[in-house]
């Protein structure tokens, strides 16, 4: 009904919900990798091309260009008109879209299986023959600015999140919004988009993932035919970027029209090494901790702050152990109940962490997380799209898709002591970043009333 070019894929559900069986892989001569997973339940195929280029690779003054290029990829090639490929895919009964994240940009089609070559041919064409004209760019950049207004500027919680990221990451590019700052969008030119395309859209920087009712060897043959001849070029060496250690808490207030206050707080947190080994113990402890605090109706935050004490209207926690940029955050967010101040709510959230340091977590809680993950693995087998997402994300971020196979084993190994260890090590006040939403009346002439304020 509606269609979106997705910018954020921040909380991508249990990314691991599927132990993979039978992913086959080849690398083409130009360096492009092709991964195929067969699933013959339904006569459909999902095809995705992933580029290892996202907002992580942008520089100041040109934020948002990765996402703008994603939009321009629909605007024609040397032999096709703007929008023509969308028509071709639609006339083949297909669904298509694309999304940009901090770590990657990806393009996908879902098709009846016999139509798969159409999408491969199209992706190969726009990988090498994209045409970006000034005229098309000028129209599309307005669309992107509308997208930013819709996604962020008129959504107070999205603004809080943008501010939060820019505070917790002051040096690392994860501090910049994926959609880009409005000023950068206003000053972006079509040459900026072309420059980005010429920097990152080499086949050697791309991964094709196909799943569904397909024959692996046939997909490989088609991949060689369509993508194999595209010439690769050298991708600029990426410099390692790390956030300097935070020494002292960071606090900010965001004012926006609304009724309810809200807080987002968090701490820098480790990520899994690309070898699948480095930081393993800590990141899995954090994964389990998130499962215990949030995610289901019986999780601690919900149980203790919403249900038992009615201190909050809504609560949640989030963490991702995977990241191409080598940085992650552990976050909690909450909307206070009417008579609770944001200052007290922050204390209550911290108390939940302290309570685990003092008393640990129970075996029942640990087992609950395991049960959910085990069942989740089975449930995700119902989705071909989910399989492609998982493989593509892992590989683009620099991990092997095979680490999914041992995910559950690592979850099972986590102990109460491991969890206490990561809380003690990472979650202290000098590493805290917190943003408070201070709701303002819609009518600017009215004075905010009746609600507890940020200070």
């Amino acid at each position, binding site marked *: *009904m*509606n*269609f*979106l070019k997705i910018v954020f894929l921040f909380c991508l559900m249990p990314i691991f919900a599927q132990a993979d069986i039978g992913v086959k892989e080849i690398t083409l001569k130009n360096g492009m990798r092709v991964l195929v997973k067969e699933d013959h*339940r*339904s*006569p*459909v195929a999902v095809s995705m091309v992933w580029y290892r280029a996202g907002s992580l690779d942008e520089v100041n003054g040109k934020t948002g260009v990765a996402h703008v290029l994603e939009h321009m990829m629909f605007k024609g090639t040397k032999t096709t008109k*703007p*929008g023509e490929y*969308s*028509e071709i895919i*639609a*006339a*083949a*009964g*297909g*669904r*298509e879209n694309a999304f940009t994240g901090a770590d990657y940009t990806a393009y996908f089609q*879902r*098709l*009846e299986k016999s*139509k798969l070559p159409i999408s491969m041919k199209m992706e190969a064409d726009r990988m090498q023959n994209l045409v970006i004209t000034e005229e098309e760019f*000028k*129209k599309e*950049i*307005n*669309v*992107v*600015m*509308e*997208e930013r*207004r*819709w996604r962020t500027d*008129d959504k107070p919680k999205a603004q809080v999140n943008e501010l939060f990221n820019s505070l917790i990451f002051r040096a690392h590019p994860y501090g910049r919004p994926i959609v880009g700052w409005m000023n950068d969008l206003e000053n972006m030119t079509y040459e900026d988009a072309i420059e980005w395309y010429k920097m990152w859209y080499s086949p050697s920087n791309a991964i094709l993932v196909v799943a569904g009712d397909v024959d692996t060897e046939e997909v490989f043959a088609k991949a060689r035919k369509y993508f194999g001849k595209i010439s690769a070029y050298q991708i600029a060496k990426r410099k390692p970027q790390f956030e300097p250690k935070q020494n002292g808490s960071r606090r900010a207030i965001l004012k926006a*029209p*609304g*009724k*309810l206050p809200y807080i987002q707080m968090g701490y820098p947190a480790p990520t899994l090494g690309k070898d699948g080994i480095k930081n393993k113990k800590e990141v899995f402890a954090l994964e389990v901790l998130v499962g215990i605090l949030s995610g*289901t*109706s*019986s999780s601690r935050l919900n149980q203790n702050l919403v*249900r038992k004490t*009615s201190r909050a*209207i809504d609560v949640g926690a989030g963490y991702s152990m995977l990241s191409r940029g080598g940085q992650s955050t552990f976050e909690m967010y909450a909307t206070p*109940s*009417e008579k609770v101040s944001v200052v007290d709510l922050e204390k209550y959230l911290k108390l939940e962490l302290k309570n685990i340091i003092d008393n640990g977590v129970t075996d029942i809680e640990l*087992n*609950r997380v395991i*049960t*959910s993950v*085990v*069942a989740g693995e*089975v449930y995700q*087998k*119902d*989705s*071909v799209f989910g399989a492609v997402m998982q493989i593509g994300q892992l590989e683009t971020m620099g991990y092997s898709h095979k680490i999914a196979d041992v995910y559950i084993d690592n979850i099972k190994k986590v102990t109460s002591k491991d969890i206490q260890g990561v809380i003690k090590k990472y979650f202290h006040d000098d590493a805290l970043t917190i943003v408070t939403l201070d*709701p303002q009346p*819609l009518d600017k002439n009215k004075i905010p009333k009746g609600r507890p304020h940020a200070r």
Partner: protein
Amino acid sequence: MLVKTILITILIFFSNFSSATLNIQHWESNNGARIYFVENHDLPIVDINVDFRAGSVKDTKQKSGVASLTNHVMVLGAGGINEEDLANQFIDLGAQLNSSFDQDKSGFSLRTLSEKKIEAIDLLTLVLHKPNFDSKIIEREKKRYVASISQSETMPGAIASKAFMKALYGEHPYALPNSGEVETIKKISKKDLHDFYKSNYLSNELSIVIVGDISRKDAEDLGHKISLGFSENKMASATPLVDYKKGQEIKISHPSKQAHLYYGAPIIKRGDPDFLTLYLGNYILGGGGFVSRLTQNIREDRGLAYSVYSYFMPFIQEGPFQIGLQTKKNQVGEAKELVKKTVSTFIKNGPTPKELRQAKDYMIGGFPLRLDSNKKILEYVSMMAFYKYPLDYLETFTDKINKITAEEIKSAFQRRVDMSKFSTVIVGSEQQKKRS
């Protein structure tokens, strides 16, 4: 046996590729519940969806929100098991219970591993048959409703949506916000929920859909077990008729960056013979994502909006035909004129032969994508079950689409879509720029 059984096998043939089979079995319980079953042992999963005709259309203006709150509180404790224990029991089985709610229906879905299906189904049955309606929980959830409603009253999209439904439905219950109003929620009592449950959760207004790794015998037992916990009431209130006479222009100021525009009128109900024709036509007008005329004219050619769409949302009675977009404030007048022009041109001339061909290719060629997972089969069959679609709906879908002509689309739009009666809601428009 208590069940009268009709077994229907639906074969779907596609013109240019392999045939796919979706075997939908259907029967009715002796107290009138309709049960649909798709057996599939590829994955060790069972999915169940249960829908009651107990959506917000059953609310009254004075107690707006009772229907939603009933649906919401039902999963928070049942059969004397408290909220926390119930949630934990589902989680310890690895089972997922979700509730859904809209104007027409109140729904509950369960996803479970087949090896845990007996225990999980027992819990689901308890939720459906014996909700606790605990007073303390009701009071707590009422406060959460009030907070979230008062928050949504500050959000431009939510304000626009509420005003649009009010403009289209006036005193009809479809105008009532799904979750009620701050003042009405505050007045709702435990007794209200209980009474609502008793009079609206009825076996003859219940549809049950079962998909996945379970035998026919077990599916029959399950259908029975659920339906027998409800009483039948053939005198249950019918959904009131929609009486829409003329459009309104509503402008609401808001400090947002974008103005939100909604435009449309109530047009068709479920089962309307024009539905597929309008649906296919609307794909060309504004339903077909990147390739629709609205997207082409508003977004691709002018860069005026990120998202612009149109859809028919048929309910039991006439549901809205709705066009929506968001755009920078000072552009909303221009965008609105373009929308009007696009719609009126389409109504006047209908689709081009090329557009019609492409739309049919999309519908027919993409048909397998609608049913490529158990979850999607569950959703599709649940819709058919609730709205009593004919059982050959899927079987004949592509054939019917294929036969629709450009002239029929034009005629259907001309007969049914009267722009002179459309309502317009703009939230966040600039006051001084009044057009039209």
